């Protein structure tokens, strides 16, 4: 086989690989929600469900980020408010009528949100998050022009504050 033929085959292989890459990662489906005027996203496999906050039970001795607990599908679910968890601004409960259940396959926690926007395809050009040290944010994506902070369930749930001592 001549040198040209090899070159042609190489180029074809590279082109095919490039097309395949583009097809495979064109968009990513994220479950989007709003908290503190910021848009957040979670991969679908990391969302176990969502619920309206009807009856909240306060937990004695709970840290400020543990807003309370609810019963969800027969289990006790801790409700987490990201703002105090990250040490940022506090908001009243009236602003947080909904929770989204985040899971890493082993554990789960309810995260209070202001608004659930549903599942949307976002630009697949997701980059590692290099902003402040908010625990659980792993990447940044874009939904139209708006930046979406992508939460990682594993990172969030592995934070020392959420694990049993």
């Amino acid at each position: 086989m001549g040198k040209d033929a090899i070159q042609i085959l190489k180029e074809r292989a590279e082109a095919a690989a490039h097309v395949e890459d583009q097809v495979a990662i064109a968009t990513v489906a994220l479950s989007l929600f709003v908290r503190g005027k910021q848009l957040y996203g979670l991969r679908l496999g990391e969302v176990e469900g969502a619920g309206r906050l009807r009856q909240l039970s306060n937990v004695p001795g709970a840290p400020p980020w543990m807003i309370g607990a609810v019963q969800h599908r027969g289990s006790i679910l801790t409700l987490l408010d990201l703002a105090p968890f990250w040490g940022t601004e506090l908001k009243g409960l009236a602003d947080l009528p909904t929770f989204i259940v985040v899971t890493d396959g082993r554990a789960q926690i309810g995260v209070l949100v202001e608004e659930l926007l549903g599942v949307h395809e976002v630009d697949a050009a997701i980059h590692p998050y290099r902003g402040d040290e908010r625990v659980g944010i792993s990447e940044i994506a874009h939904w139209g022009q708006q930046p979406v902070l992508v939460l990682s369930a594993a990172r969030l749930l592995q934070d020392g504050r959420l694990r049993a001592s």
Partner: protein
Amino acid sequence: MDEILRQVLTLFGEEFKEHSLAMAQSLIQADRSDSAEERKALMAEVYRRAHSVKGTSGTLGLFDLEDMAHAVETALIAFRSGERHLVPGLAQKILDGLDQAQRLLEAVAAGADVSDPVLRATAADLLKLAAAADKPAVQDLRPMTPSPEPATPPPPGAIHLTPPPPEPQSQGAELAARAEDAFARKGAQVESLRVSAEQLFNLERQPDELREIRTVIEQRAEDARRLFWTLQGALSRAQRSIEYELAAAIRDQILQLQRNITGVAGELSFRVTELDRELRALRMLELKTLTDPLAKAVFKHADTLRKKVRLETFGAKVALDRRMLQELKDPFVHLVRNAVDHGIETPAERARVGKRDEGVIRIDVEQRGNTVQITFTDDGAGIDLNAVRQKAIETGLLTAEAAAALPEDQLQELIFQPGFSTSAKLSKTAGRGVGLDVVKENVQKAGGRVSVSSRRGQGSRFVIEVPLTLATAQALLFEASGFALAVPLSSVVRARFVDNVEASRGHLEVEGQLLPIHAMSDVIQVPASHAPGTGYSVVVVRAAERMLAIRVDRLLGEREVVVRPLPPEMLRLRHLSAATPLGDGRLAFILSTRALVESLSSSTSFAALEEVARKHRVVVADDSITTRSLHRQVLEAAGYQVETAADGEEALRLLRAKGADLLVSDIHMPRMDGITLTRKVRGEPLLGSLPVVLVSSLDSDADQERAQDAGASAYLTKGAYQRGELLKLVQSLLPS
């Protein structure tokens, strides 16, 4: 067949199906895999499941199945590293055995005999294949790309359990067909009423979800009621007209609607309660369904080892959730088999060290609030810590220096490491490194913990503590500082209203003790609530032999509650042990009474706690509160840590649970006197050498002789006690 055995066989039948299916899948995957690492993991899975089947089948007297599972283990030894491919025919033969075992279990459940010559023949074939596998095999050198395997002629003397396939098939294709067949058989059993634990768990969630719906319906009824009164208010100010009549008619319809909705909510509530009750009954099974079959297994197993062992079980009528029992089954089997294998000595060995020729394994079950404690005690040789240390060094778990420096209790815990076995000899039950790691894993899976303590020459004690999280509990519910809270009823000494006059004293007299009343907000460190009134309610709880009186806002009453485990994020909140859903959608948190009591000593420094731990522990048993208090004061003043019991039974329970360095006991007590207590203590494997001081008001020779016969270390009259003799005696019996 008795009912208990039938229930256990049913449980095992379901479990075996899962094991069989998982083993088949792993074998097929291993057969196809070209990755040594993957094959290793898959073999480990098959091996572990075979070991589990072996243990349980032996316990149930299914000895042919036990032999078959043992043969599977033996046959796979050569392949556990994953370096070698399975030899052709081996996986099929194992699957043949699993199929036949399944048929046997179904037949036994229908009342057939437990022996099965076909299964025995399969086991023999497997052992032959295992022997052949020890030689270097040509098949191990097969290419990376799977190719059709040549048909393997059956070993001489092999018995075909299933007809051979009409056409030659590749090993992989045949195995895949077997797996599909197994799935199909599992799915086809529509006549069976067995329900998997998972399905039951899913069903169990339904009442909670229905309660949430009921709460919403009740809220709608409340909305309708408000609407009615709004309209009623407007109409009362309006002038009569046609519109008025129309609005009044609407008002009446709203009232009717509200009543209908309330009625529906009430009906739903009733049905949910019924459903809950039925589901609970489905879930619960007495622990004796696990412990009863163990006695026979212990007897048979000991017989094969030429040992004499008796199994005694106490308190196994405690009912637990079936899922919990499922998790505990393997640990129970492993612990009694381990005790027979490694613990109890042969009659000759026992005779040499002055023990009775028959060894005793004892299982004590005790419900303690929200937990069940199961203690396995044997009076055998105990754990050889030198062997443990040596094994830890050999396996690279510890360096020689680290092993030498490791305290005994931590050294004992090493036996729970996977693959850790000090048995040099590979036998049917020992030396395979499978067992105690399974015990720990299963107990942890059940949300519990296991610990071991042992004294060389005297025996071992394994304590399994599992929460009643899957079950229900009787609890006292109350409100304090805006929280709905509960404590296990078993730890409640008293709960009552205290009027302002009594409250002004700040303390309460309970069982002859003056208890200061603490605000719940102080104890659990939450903001205080101020509810002015004519008094308040007080709950007195007992834990760790101490009582605590706590002021609460309102008593809600006693109730049987469903205990739900806390999520991991709440495990750091040490006052909380579990939660329970209330009927209105709220959660009540169940408090740990032990943590409540301990929080009063929260100011105690770590050093002080360590000092307490270093003190000698003395248990004082006396039915007179005055004498108990006197003993306590005298001994505590001298630096001893004292726990008290009101009779022999309570003292024995305390000693078994926590041990002690010395026992001081009255002779004449209700339920169990001091003489019986002393005899029992002397008969306990881990308490046998405990110094016992018997104290009596009688200075009679007969009493002294009885005390001596029972094995008391010293005898003291109460007159001598008054002369300060007790302290001298205790000091002489306990080295400083």
